[in-house]
């Protein structure tokens, strides 16, 4: 068994400091160059003087698991596209009917049609969300990182959500530190902000205010969306980011969400080496926030590596 050539770099860059606690999935080449997957954990043993003496490695064969994951990812991807094709036609036909292209419909028929449209849109969103989260899990999402000001990200998200906010008779206020710059995939981070804002709108009482902030904290840019809605019970704070978790099972029906929005949002933030969290009090409201590394930090880190080399 040989280490896959593309994995060698991970070992070359190991230092006594990074060996201890090293753990990751690693590809190997078996007989006839078959691909094998292992999960490697390394620990460093030091003598009494603190000098590194031995490395202990534990390698677990995870090839079967990786193959099963791949089959699952492909299956979901194919099913997703197969579902989307007929749905596109259904939504298109309904859209032409609803748009009055074939004449005015009787009121009851128009109501039925509106129901069909709303639920088709919900199904389209659900399928898109499932495909999105699967693509990210399978590592098929390539982020297009570029420097951008936090204020620009917030403004883009506000533009997208403004109509929804106005329709719900809510107010949106922002407090954004204009000096913050991050290196992110702008479309994806705007998607996260829009998702958090969308949730805030859904759960905000009439005529209340939603606050968006972007501030510097612990060397990170901290984005936060605060509402004054019903809040999340303490026992559910830990699971709110899991797939298909909603505080109330009826939320999926009433609020029209897929139950995947927060899972996707957290996934995107983590792909940016960031962190996402929530603070909430029942009856008072919730704050969903995420932290992203500031651009200056990234530059410094790269500089350090060059110096070390």
């Amino acid at each position, binding site marked *: 068994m040989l280490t896959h050539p593309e994995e060698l770099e991970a070992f070359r860059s190991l230092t006594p400091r990074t060996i201890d606690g090293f753990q990751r999935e690693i590809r190997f080449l078996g007989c006839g160059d078959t691909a094998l997957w292992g999960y490697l954990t390394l620990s460093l043993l030091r003598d009494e003087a603190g000098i590194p003496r031995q490395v202990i490695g534990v390698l677990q064969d995870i090839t079967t698991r990786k193959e099963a994951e791949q089959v699952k990812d492909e299956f979901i991807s194919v099913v997703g596209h197969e579902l989307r094709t007929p749905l596109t*036609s259904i939504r298109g036909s309904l859209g032409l009917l609803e748009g009055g292209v074939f004449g005015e419909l009787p009121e009851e028929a128009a109501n039925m049609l509106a129901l069909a449209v709303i639920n088709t849109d919900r199904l389209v969103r659900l399928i898109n969300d499932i495909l999105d989260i699967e693509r990210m899990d399978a590592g098929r999402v390539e982020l297009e990182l570029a420097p951008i000001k936090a204020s620009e990200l917030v403004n883009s998200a506000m533009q997208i959500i403004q109509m929804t906010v106005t329709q719900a008779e809510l107010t949106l206020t922002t407090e954004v530190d204009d000096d913050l710059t991050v290196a992110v995939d702008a479309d994806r981070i705007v998607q996260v902000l829009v998702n958090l804002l969308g949730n805030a709108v859904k759960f905000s009482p009439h005529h209340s205010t939603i606050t968006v902030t972007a501030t510097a904290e612990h060397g990170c840019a901290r984005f936060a969306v605060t509402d004054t809605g019903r809040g999340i019970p303490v026992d559910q704070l830990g699971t709110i980011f899991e797939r298909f978790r909603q505080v109330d099972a009826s939320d999926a029906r009433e609020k029209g969400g897929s139950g995947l929005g927060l899972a996707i949002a957290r996934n995107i933030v983590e792909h940016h080496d960031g962190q996402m969290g929530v603070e909430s009090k029942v009856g008072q409201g919730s704050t969903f926030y995420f932290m992203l590394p500031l651009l200056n930090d990234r530059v410094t880190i790269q500089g350090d590596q060059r110096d070390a080399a």
Partner: protein
Amino acid sequence: MSQRLLLVDDEDAIRTIASISLERIGGWTVIPASSGQAALEIARKDGPFDAVLMDVMMPGIDGPTTLGHMRDGILAPQVPVIFLTAKVGGAEHERLLSLGATGVIAKPFDPMMLPDEVRQILDC
């Protein structure tokens, strides 16, 4: 006389919906083709066209390949070609434009908005 648009998609339902939308709302005369092959035949015999609206992923020869053949003298070079694609993302958009497409419209499209979207791309 209304303008002629060549519509290429392997899905019958999509052709029907897009045709109704473009003809009734947009005022186009739509000539449908169910494959890249069929589109090339029609472009040869039944031209000229004022625009082409074409799916990207089709069995047989796909949209970009069909476009390549069209640009080899079958279609007048100034005729705009717009792609319909279910693949989203800036990279895919750029790739299609670099192949010589005039514009890209995302699937699923809203049939009430489709004629406007086509018009906007053509007016650019």
